[in-house]
């Protein structure tokens, strides 16, 4: 479980996040949703330690990541896997080297064990026999799947995904979503997914946090999201015609 307490973050006096608190549960796909520019990515970066919040704490199973000792932070880093928006694969390395990279840095397995682990993860994301391909030879969806393999290769307990299905066709997008959810259930990870895609919300929103202009306005799941009384949330959900139609 990950808990955040009163996260505040500003850039050059412009406050982006206001006092955000909440919990993300283990073995579930936790979503952070909201319109573009509301601070979802900033919040995620605070969670994984790429940005330091001005105020507030991030707790990984009660271990304080924001103010922890160096040793604790190194320990937590080993447990975090992250999927970036564009995959963020290393251009100069092939698929196998990319997925193996965290193992080379973080684990003490021998070479054969590492390769075994890499192939196992590539199989989990449905990509076999492409070990020697370079990232430039992959499609967007494949890049994301390799990115997911890299994020889980070190047995990550915490999985973070920034807009895993943006820029993909609806079918591939749903496949990626379902893959993330399947891995979350199987590997019992605490998964946090940032998205502004209502399909994902319906598909995998087991726990949802809605952010608007840097403030948390609502938290719930994809069953009760349609009954919320929060005006901004309703505007967000029913911004497209399909959803409006479904409502009426």
């Amino acid at each position, binding site marked *: 479980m990950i808990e955040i307490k009163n996260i505040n973050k500003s850039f050059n006096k412009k406050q982006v996040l206001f006092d955000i608190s909440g919990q993300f549960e283990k073995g579930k796909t936790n979503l952070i949703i909201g319109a573009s520019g509301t601070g979802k990515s900033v919040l995620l970066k605070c969670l994984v330690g790429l940005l330091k919040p001005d105020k507030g704490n991030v707790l990984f199973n009660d271990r304080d990541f924001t103010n922890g000792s160096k040793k604790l932070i190194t320990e937590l*880093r*080993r447990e975090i896997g*992250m999927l*970036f928006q*564009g995959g*963020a694969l*290393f*251009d100069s390395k092939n698929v196998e080297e990319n997925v193996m990279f965290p193992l080379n*840095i973080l684990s003490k397995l021998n070479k054969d064990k590492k390769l075994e682990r890499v192939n196992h993860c590539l199989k989990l994301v449905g990509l076999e026999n492409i070990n020697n391909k370079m990232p430039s030879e992959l499609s967007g969806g494949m890049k994301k799947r390799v990115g997911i393999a890299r994020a889980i290769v070190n047995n990550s307990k915490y999985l973070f995904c920034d807009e895993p299905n943006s820029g993909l066709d609806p079918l591939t997008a749903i496949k990626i979503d379902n893959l993330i959810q399947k891995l979350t259930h199987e590997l019992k990870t605490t998964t946090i997914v940032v998205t502004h895609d209502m399909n994902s919300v319906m598909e995998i929103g087991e726990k949802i946090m809605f952010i608007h202009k840097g403030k948390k306005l609502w938290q719930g799941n994809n069953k009760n999201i349609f009954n919320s009384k929060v005006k901004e949330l309703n505007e967000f959900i029913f911004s497209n015609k399909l959803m409006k139609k479904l409502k009426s």
Partner: protein
Amino acid sequence: MKNFGKYIIFISSLFQRRESFKTYFNLSINECIKIGYESLFIVAIVSIFMGAVTTLQTAFNLVGPLIPDYVISLVVRDMTLLELSPTIIAIVFAGKVGSNIAGELGTMRITEQIDALEVMGINSSSYLVLPKIIASILMYPILVVMSAFLAILGGYIAGTISEVIAGAEYIYGLRYEFNPFNIPFALIKSYVFAFLVASISSFQGYYTEGGALEVGKSSTQAVTKSCIAILIADYLLAQILL
């Protein structure tokens, strides 16, 4: 000025939270191959022509019965060692390697590859930049030595083909009143220039913000700023060491 402060902080961050020696060793070897090998061709071409042109122009300017021919090769030798090879090749090096470094790091930044490294707990600046600086400092002096040799050779070829100076005379001039200090001076310059090009270009690339357009701008900026730094350092070193 604010940028200069940021640059100093950047340089000092390279030495914090380092990876194992073996990691840097492997990365540096890779970079050496990239940086050294890829610049060989352009450095060779520029050097040969630089020597040839210097020889012909010196010959053209020194016509007169009182000046012996070997002065031509003496001038070529000193100009090559003192200025042309370390400095002009540094500018070429900035154009080739500097823009490459900035482009590579800039792309890694905007495609979140640098963030990916940071999430894994790696000090990305140290991991990516230190090997490039080490490789530049190791390879550039070798390029300069090669360049000086080729420039003098180029001068010999041009001089003898166009018959402005006899081969034996050229060799005699090369050896005439040679000041051995010119060689360490050229090497000191090379180390300084290599460090400046690699570190300034890395700095530019590492702090790229935005998209593909900005990566292009970073590359150009890297070359411009490296060149300015080279020329200033050139002046200061001449003042201090000569």
